[in-house]
């Protein structure tokens, strides 16, 4: 008697989020071909160039096998690239469409003219970002199989991990974008946050090769947790304890970022 009426607003809210989410799928209908093509080509090219091409050098270099834990360079970087490209792509999705929604095309305002709330608009968009990362990561997984990189069926669990890794970048990126007036700072984020993370968070070489003072910074990045977990799932040496630890870190990161995003979105849009 008490709970039944209380549930209805939640349902309505879920319904509004769903409607707003459909807006994004609708927009995407026009561009999906190009994005699938580049979603497949990018990882394929990277795996071919780095895994196979550069791999030729690495695999012939005697001391490397030890550093990589006895696996080929392709097997080493493929799952890392899965997480890293999820992060890269999510960063872009978390920034430019948000800026467009707030400022360039102002479709957030258009949505807010309906009964939807700011938080619901945010959740719908985040849900859409997660969908995009999931799509791209699934395509990436297919490419990984094409190269014969995964060594274990557990690699299937790497896709949701990649989504978490992506969202741990997309949510803070969206939160930050909502405080900005121009895309200048966004380009700064890509160059000074996304690129260094991509290059130094364990994707291309073990973090242990970094100078000791830099390692804690690498361990603190959500990307490192995503890369390490994806890698151990792909190589089939994941343990429950460490896997849960990495997932827990990513979830906590996303949760905090979501709270911040709710604040910055409200401050920007609810005026």
């Amino acid at each position: 008697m008490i709970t039944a009426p209380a549930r209805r607003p939640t349902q309505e809210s879920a319904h509004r989020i769903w409607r707003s989410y459909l807006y994004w799928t609708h927009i995407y209908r026009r561009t999906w071909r190009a994005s699938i093509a580049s979603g497949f080509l990018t990882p394929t090219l990277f795996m071919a160039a780095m895994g196979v091409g550069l791999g030729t050098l690495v695999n012939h270099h005697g001391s490397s096998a030890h550093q990589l834990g006895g696996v080929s360079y392709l097997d080493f970087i493929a799952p890392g690239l899965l997480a890293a490209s999820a992060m890269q792509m999510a960063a872009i999705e978390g920034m430019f469409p948000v800026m467009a929604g707030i400022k360039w095309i102002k479709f957030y305002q258009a949505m807010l003219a309906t009964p939807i709330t700011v938080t619901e608009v945010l959740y719908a968009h985040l849900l859409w970002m997660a969908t995009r990362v999931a799509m791209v990561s699934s395509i990436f997984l297919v490419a990984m199989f094409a190269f014969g990189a995964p060594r274990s069926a557990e690699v299937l669990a790497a896709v949701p991990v990649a989504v978490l890794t992506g969202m741990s970048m997309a949510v803070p990126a969206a939160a930050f974008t909502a405080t900005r007036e121009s895309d200048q700072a966004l380009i700064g984020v890509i160059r000074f946050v996304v690129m260094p993370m991509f290059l130094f968070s364990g994707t291309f070489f073990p973090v242990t090769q970094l100078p000791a003072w830099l390692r804690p910074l690498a361990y603190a990045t959500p990307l490192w947790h995503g890369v390490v977990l994806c890698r151990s799932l792909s190589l089939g040496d994941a343990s429950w304890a460490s896997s849960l630890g990495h997932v827990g870190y990513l979830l906590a990161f996303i949760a905090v970022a979501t709270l911040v995003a709710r604040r910055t979105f409200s401050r920007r849009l609810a005026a």
Partner: protein
Amino acid sequence: MSTPTVLDRAADGAAGAAAGLRITPTWSLGSRRAMRLVERNGRVYFRMWVIFVSGFFEPLFYLLSISVGISKLAGPVAGPGGHLISYTAFVAPALMAVSSMNGAVMDATFGVFFKLKFAKVYDAVLATPMDSGDVALGEISWAVLRGGIYSCVFLVVMAGMGLVHSPWAALAVPVSLLEGFGFAAVAMATATYMRSWQDFDFVTLALMPMFLFSGTFYPLSVYPSGLRELVLATPLYQGVAVIRGLDLGSPTWSMAGHCLYLLVMSVAGLMVASRRLERLILK
């Protein structure tokens, strides 16, 4: 009603003839008017210095990542002269060529497309004594300047990291300018054919394989013979080959061939870009 094509062609012919005549002063390279557009872009970027300055860091981060991590995994590589060099020394000059390409292409595609289709900057410019040749040359010069600044700073960093192995490396600067000109010219010509932002996926799809496969990250010997010829034909490979050769050794005659390739790109791109601007704006 059945003969509009004839009329079309007549009108096009007349327009074409008039258009041809308007380009006359274009080909005097170093046109002073073209520099006005360089000034304009400089002024815009002065207020967007974060974007300008940060553009330099991408190749720098790549270089650091390679020197800290990948170099140890990859081990020494055979350089242009055949002797073994560190992997970082092998990749660094190629990244300089990449940085020149990226610097040039970004402004000449995204920037030009934005100004052409959305901001209508050239509509305003062409109402002044400037003509389409000035605009093309001006935009390309700006892109070259930007790419050139990046590659010069990169060369200094390389020298600081002990990655410059020959005094001939100084010649890498003019070569990277020529490379930037070639890329900017072709990129600007391409931008005039773009219909929407989605088309830029194709730019990315052209640049990324070049970045990854033009002998940037490993010697050509890694490729099977069929692919090797393909890599030799890419525009980026020309820049990589010359800059790496100068940085690690001395000039060779084959470098003249690479430079000629870049020169042809420059001239052809400039001509097409200028004609296309004329067609698009001066209807």
